[in-house]
């Protein structure tokens, strides 16, 4: 089964490759709608991104026994995403969007620890997103008389200002929900954490990117950054619009980062981290400058790689140990060393540490902020980056370091090779993206041209140029490796002959002797300090769940109120009909 779908997943990639950017299909649905597929640089970037992600995840799924329907739905999902990114008109886009919604819904529902409430959360937010999208689409249609991207883009300029704003808000809301911008992220954490472990990687790495694709499509292609600038005016070197969007993104990033630190469930932490990382992308996407777009693109790529890596890693560990909480894991480093190294690479990327790709993308985004002089935005991003070290460390410590928290963990074996293959590929990709940022600029420049923005310079494959300084990824990573190896050689001698023969109680423990009940794993303790910091506490204490839950309660109350009318008394029903008649009679006739 797995092999068949692996091959099936290869097909779209080959298909796309075959066309080399010249794909242009149109298919009349009715006499009014035509479905069209057009391959743009932006679309192909996201297409390859998602297709390759699916391929990698499918490899990892070989280690599990999954049903035909699971694979079929997943394949359908990949096709739906392909439809989204290759769509040349909004109907195709929307069809892809909705198929994506429900096929992922059915996959998620296959998880064993899913409950109705979480499923509802997921689907309702997805549908709200879709409905806000369709509202935007039909409003745009009412002016353009066409669903075609080009036609809508052409007629956008002539729309009234309030319609323009409404369109931007509706589309943005829709895509923000998918990307999990704060306030609209209520579903994200629950869904990511409860979905099938390997599917979470798709959700976080690929599906959320569809929101980002949508934002690019709207801001870059359909409205156009130039038009945004005209509409909203400029601020510093960027646009007012970009500034507002940037604050939304930064707020998302900061809040989600703090929330991530306090999570005990591994996948919840990753989910919040996903929200935070997408917050960066949202922050820079509206700048309307080459660096902004390039940064957002780059971070999209990096985040996809990292989240695939981390989620597959965690899925493997969960499958191996059956535990998914930091307080229940720990000490797996020498039992699953390859996994540990992969996760380490992943979190170095996630934290944005220099030698790997994570830094390159962040640097690009920081550049964008400096370019537009959005200093506070930049500081916000840096700040959230600093806070993210804490959850990165929690991730690696909680799972792999310290002491095992239970006996069962001590006999854990290395995870299956099927989990490791995609991880190794992704880790290599992460290194490569860090080493050759120039190569990525080469990929991005056509997209910038598509948005009619100026291109970015690069010097060879290793150097990314920017107005405020260059970044030689290749130099940094080689210097790092060389120095690392030199020091390793130097220090090699200090390695003692002693084997790893320590009893877990052989540690300095305030002069006391720890016993079997003493908790030696600090996995649970992360983030407890944060509650004592006023500013952070204010963030952690608040939750959008209050709002949504009270909304649900209100809806239920309304429902009860209405259903009281339908209490089945035919006598009263008759009276109501007669009264209605009388009322209309007196109103209408006299």
């Amino acid at each position, binding site marked *: 089964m797995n092999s068949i779908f692996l091959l099936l997943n290869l097909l779209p990639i080959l298909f796309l490759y075959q066309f080399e950017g010249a794909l242009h299909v149109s298919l009349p649905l009715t006499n009014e709608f035509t479905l069209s597929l057009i391959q743009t640089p932006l679309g192909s970037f996201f297409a390859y991104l998602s297709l390759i992600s699916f391929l990698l995840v499918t490899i990892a799924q070989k280690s599990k026994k999954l049903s035909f329907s699971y694979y079929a739905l997943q394949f359908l999902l990949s096709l739906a995403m392909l439809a989204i990114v290759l769509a040349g008109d909004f109907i195709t886009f929307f069809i892809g969007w909705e198929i994506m919604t429900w096929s992922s819904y059915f996959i998620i529902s296959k998880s064993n620890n899913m409950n109705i409430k979480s499923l509802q959360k997921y689907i309702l937010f997805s549908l709200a997103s879709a409905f806000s999208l369709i509202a935007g689409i039909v409003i745009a249609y009412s002016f353009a008389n066409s669903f075609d991207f080009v036609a809508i883009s052409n007629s956008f300029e002539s729309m009234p200002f309030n319609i323009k704003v409404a369109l931007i808000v509706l589309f943005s809301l829709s895509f923000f929900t998918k990307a999990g911008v704060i306030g609209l992220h209520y579903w994200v954490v629950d869904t990511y954490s409860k979905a099938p472990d390997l599917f979470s990687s798709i959700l976080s790495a690929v599906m959320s990117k569809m929101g980002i694709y949508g934002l690019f499509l709207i801001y870059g292609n359909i409205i156009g950054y130039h038009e945004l600038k005209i509409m909203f005016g400029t601020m510093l070197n960027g646009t007012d619009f970009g500034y507002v969007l940037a604050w939304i993104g930064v707020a998302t990033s900061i809040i989600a980062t703090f929330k991530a630190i306090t999570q005990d469930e591994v996948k919840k932490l990753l989910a919040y981290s996903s929200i935070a990382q997408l917050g960066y992308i949202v922050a820079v996407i509206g700048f309307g400058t080459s660096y902004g777009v390039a940064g957002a693109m780059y971070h999209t790529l990096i985040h996809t790689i990292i989240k695939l890596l981390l989620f597959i890693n965690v899925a493997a560990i969960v499958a191996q140990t059956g535990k998914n909480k930091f307080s229940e894991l720990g000490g797996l480093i020498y039992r699953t060393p390859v996994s540990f190294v992969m996760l380490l690479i992943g979190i170095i990327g996630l934290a944005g540490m220099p030698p790997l790709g994570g830094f390159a993308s962040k640097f690009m985004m920081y550049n964008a902020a400096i370019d537009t002089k959005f200093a506070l935005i930049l500081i916000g991003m840096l700040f959230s980056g600093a806070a993210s070290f804490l959850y*990165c460390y929690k991730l690696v410590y909680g799972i792999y370091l310290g002491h095992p928290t239970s006996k069962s963990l001590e006999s854990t074996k290395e995870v299956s090779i099927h989990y490791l293959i995609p991880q190794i590929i992704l880790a290599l990709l992460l290194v490569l993206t860090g080493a050759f940022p120039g190569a990525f600029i080469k990929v991005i420049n056509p997209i910038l041209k598509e948005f009619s923005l100026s291109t970015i310079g690069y010097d060879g494959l290793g150097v990314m140029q920017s107005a405020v300084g260059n970044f030689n990824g290749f130099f940094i990573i080689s210097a790092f490796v060389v120095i690392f190896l030199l020091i390793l050689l130097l220090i090699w001698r200090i390695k003692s002959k002693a084997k790893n023969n320590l009893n877990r109680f052989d540690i300095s423990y305030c002069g006391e002797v720890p016993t079997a009940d003493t908790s030696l794993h600090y996995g649970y303790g992360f983030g407890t300090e944060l509650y004592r910091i006023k500013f952070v506490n204010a963030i952690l204490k608040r939750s959008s769940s209050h709002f949504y839950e009270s909304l649900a309660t209100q809806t239920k109350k309304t429902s009860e109120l209405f259903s009281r009318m339908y209490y089945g008394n035919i006598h009263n029903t008759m009276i109501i009909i007669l009264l209605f008649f009388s009322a209309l009679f007196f109103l209408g006739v006299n």
Partner: protein
Amino acid sequence: MVFQIILLIMLAYVVGFIYFGLYRNITARIQGRYRPTVYQSFYDSIKLFSKKQSVSYGWMFYLGPIIMATGAVLTLILVPVFSDSDFLRSVTSQGNLFVLLYLMVLGPLGNALAVGTGGNPFGVMGVVRGLTRLIGLELPFYIAVVGLIIAANSSDIVHIIDMQKIGGLNIINHPLLFIGAMISMVGFFGESPFDIPGAPQEVYSGPRTEFSGKFLALLMSQGSLFAFAKLVLIVDLFLGGADSLEMLVLKTFAIFVSIIFIGIVYGRYKVEQAVDFLMKLPTLIAVLGLARVVWFG
């Protein structure tokens, strides 16, 4: 090239340890107790290096300090210690200020990995406190750095130094940013009032709990390397860099002493107090400086 780098490292090593010794010396004097010699840290480190390790926590315990040291050395290379050296300038321009900001954290992270491997909850507690403190600590510093970058419109340190040669020192042009950065520096040096993560009185020695012998020595040496690199960074950013060894020592020493004097008079903040404090006054000062740069610069 390799020779120059090794020379640089040696210089940093020596200066770093001397400063560390001085710090202990001066502190003792101020507090009116017997003081160690300036070279005490050297002796300590030599003693520790010659010790034998008898237990093992596994390979990650080794790699952690090595990553840390790598970070320190890389930082040192990327900071132009001598602003007129062509070699250093060319190396520096491969990276930029952002690379440095992140490299400064790479060391602690490597350390943290090793601490985690060590398996001592107190060590991890110290690490967590350190990382938590970092949230607050980096804020004013970041603001200062961002302010300078925007003012110079470049994230290249060499460029910032060159700008100061023309337009005057940043400490004069942007005093508020300097103050913000200095307050952060106090924390970066592990001085009071922000010294909680490693304070032995607090969490049983903090991150270093499980380290001994050669590891402790490695930790100390990279700590001094880092300290030196940070001092040089401040000098480069605000004092226009240093052309010669004397200028370098003078400027870094000035910064160093002021940091010590700031630190020594305060009691210790709890970690949340520290973050709270850092998020208020220093951040405010730095933001004011930044606003000046962005809106009126």
